[in-house]
């Protein structure tokens, strides 16, 4: 990279915290044992993993024994959906219409093999539609999966209530808390769920580590079979360095959460005031949202074009979720909220971190205004 851009894509991935890197480095050099080995090299690795397990559990109000280490949030979601389905053949699974592809795709794969998958709709603000939830629960359902905070809009769901409804109908509850962790308080027991997905690289930790927080009452079938690591739930040599990084990242975010969120929310609110003056429509802003996320569109402006234009000006933003920005289909989250297709195509996501500054927001608004004027002139000429 020749120029250092302003990074506004923190829901895509975050910059590793230098303190996390420092904690990881020994495990990329002299502390290289395989955690399954019984000699001192292996026992040191095991010890480091168990320490990280405590840090992760502490950050989300779970017991260390409830923490199943995986390779990523994607893997945790796949494990939850596929793993529960395998133990409950013949029963339905209900997922919301705004889930990340790593929940919807494994559900689709199960559907192809004959499982019943029901979709819970959302309202215009992106919140779970209660009637739709209850309708899904009328059918014998093994698992309900609803994300805690949406990666695109940042909208936060009332997971504890949804979990209660699931419980009444004898369904287990899973929530994807990947985007919520580090941005709002996440507490496994308060949420009242049986399984919860976490990811390291969204909280200033390294890529390559994730976790599924799992209530022992929920039996799941593993995805990966072999050496029997993680009590048989996830075989494969543990990625010690990444797990250590994930652990310390969890400790840091829970210690520093409050001091960061206030500043981040102020920046986001400042940004949105400016966006509104530019005629932007902000999605999900009538309900509880993550403090760092702003998902908006400016009528008549194509999102992909604007993202590219902003990139040339040195701003890294997203036109949708990173994982689906390959495709030019409008966001499935916005479509589920009933947003018009053309407007949805204009969607741009800014997601902030504590590394961003108010100055960057101000410069961004000026750049956006400039690009808008330029694009409007071009459109006027074309007509």
């Amino acid at each position, binding site marked *: *990279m020749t120029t250092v851009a302003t*990074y506004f*894509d923190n829901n*895509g*991935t975050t910059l*590793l915290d*230098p303190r996390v*890197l420092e904690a990881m*480095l020994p495990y*990329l*050099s*002299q502390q*290289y*044992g*395989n955690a*399954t*080995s*019984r*000699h001192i090299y*292996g026992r040191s690795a095991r010890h480091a993993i168990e320490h990280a397990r405590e840090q992760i559990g502490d950050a989300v109000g779970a017991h260390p024994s409830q923490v199943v280490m995986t*390779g*990523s949030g*994607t*893997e945790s*979601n*796949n494990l939850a959906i596929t793993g529960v389905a395998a133990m409950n053949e013949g029963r339905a699974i209900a997922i919301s219409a705004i889930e990340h*592809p*790593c929940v919807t*795709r*494994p559900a689709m*794969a199960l559907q192809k093999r004959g499982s019943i998958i029901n979709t819970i709709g959302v309202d215009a603000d992106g919140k779970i539609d209660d009637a739709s939830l209850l309708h899904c629960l009328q059918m014998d359902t093994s698992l309900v999966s609803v994300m805690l905070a949406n990666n695109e809009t940042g909208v936060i769901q009332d997971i504890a209530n949804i979990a209660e409804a699931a419980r009444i109908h004898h369904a287990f509850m899973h929530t994807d808390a990947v985007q919520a962790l580090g941005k709002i308080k996440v507490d496994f027991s308060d949420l009242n769920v049986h399984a919860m997905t976490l990811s390291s*690289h969204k909280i200033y930790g*390294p*890529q*390559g*580590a994730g976790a599924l927080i799992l209530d022992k009452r929920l039996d799941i079938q593993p*995805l*990966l*079979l*072999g*050496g*029997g690591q993680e009590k048989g739930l996830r*075989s*494969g*040599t*543990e*990625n*010690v360095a*990444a797990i250590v990084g994930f652990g310390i990242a969890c400790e840091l975010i829970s210690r520093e959460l409050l001091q960061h969120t206030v500043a981040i929310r102020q920046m986001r609110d400042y940004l949105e005031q400016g966006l509104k003056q530019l005629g932007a429509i902000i999605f999900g802003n009538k309900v509880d949202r993550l403090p760092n996320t702003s998902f908006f569109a400016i009528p008549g402006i194509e999102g*992909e074009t604007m*993202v590219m234009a902003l*990139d040339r000006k040195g701003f*890294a*933003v*997203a036109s949708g*979720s*990173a*994982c689906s*920005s*390959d495709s030019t289909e409008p966001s499935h989250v916005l479509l589920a909220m009933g947003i018009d297709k053309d407007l949805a195509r204009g969607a741009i996501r800014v997601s902030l971190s504590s590394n961003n500054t108010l100055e960057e927001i101000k410069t961004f608004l000026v750049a956006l205004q400039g690009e808008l004027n330029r694009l409007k002139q071009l459109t006027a000429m074309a007509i």
Partner: protein
Amino acid sequence: MSVHTPIYLDYSATTPTDPRVAEKMIPYLTEHFGNPASRSHPFGWTAEKAVENAREEVAKLVNADPREIVWTSGATESNNLAIKGAANFYSGKGKHIITIQTEHKAVIDTVRELERVGFEATYLAPEPDGLIDLEKFKAAIRPDTVLASVMLVNNEIGVIQDIEAIGNICRENGVIFHVDAAQATGKVVIDLEKLPVDLMSFSAHKTYGPKGIGALYVRRKPRIRIEAQMHGGGHERGMRSGTLATHQIVGMGEAFRIAREEMELENARIRRLRDRLLNGLQDIDEVYVNGDLKHRVPHNLNISFNFVEGESLIMAVKDIAVSSGSACTSASLEPSYVLRALGRSDELAHSSIRFSIGRFTTEEDIDYTIDLMKSKIGKLRELSPLWEMHLEGVDLSKVEWAAH
């Protein structure tokens, strides 16, 4: 020169990350931290470019096309993906799978799971030297055999299977052929242009790369299809979803590049060390090498010390870090199933040690190990009534033990 104890002789369990590899990884943990799937900004592009360079390095080591390399979280995932993925995709062709009793658990347990959902499996026994009898393999093939999985290098005894011959038998019979090469990269030459192999699993951390990253080779010509096991953003052409850990991929690429450039010299040096170790240990009475010595990677020496109790052996040799079975199963006290499959008795299997030598092993390390083993085995045997009986000429296999 003094040695640093415990001496690490467990390179088959995992290898240290080569400092050159770690150095290459660190920038991708700091300034180049983008998500390679982000297509809208240079943070993502830089990461994507690094991922593709690494893919080329991995492909080069095994003479494959970069488009045939799919990233995974490690060899366990590669084995699961290859076996479940191919078996499910081609299940219309047949439901019989052949594998070997001495495969890694990641293969055995995956095949067992497929049995649970309606496949049938043959677990072929190896010969006492650990190698497969080609005629027996041929005889195991049935008209409905869809997949065979055979490891290139065994993790416990280091023997090298004749993958080319086995692959040719598979080709002749229209059987898809998967090979677990986790223990082979950097140790034996792998040429996938020539080898009749359809799917091959790789691991980074057995070849001086980082943990948490591996790859699966999926042949393009003739094209092999697999059913994805992890679904999501559609990464890796839909075969394996999930955000790629860029720094780990970069590390695997660099590790495989170093392996390609240095394996010839390195293997010659390691062979000299292994032979030195073998010569030294052969001075001890009643030692048995497990597995064929000729068809074997130079890094491995697996030896049973007769008339020594397994657990006390491990306790006695604390100054060396070794395995008494595969790293992945050494948590249990069951004797190694690999050694049992070779026909070794429980006692000999229990009293076995796998010495695995690597890039940072020195001649001093080996000499220290030889001295340590000689002295400790001697002491343990002094305490052993069985050893005493053996010296007195009692044939222990004919002794009838009284129950207490």
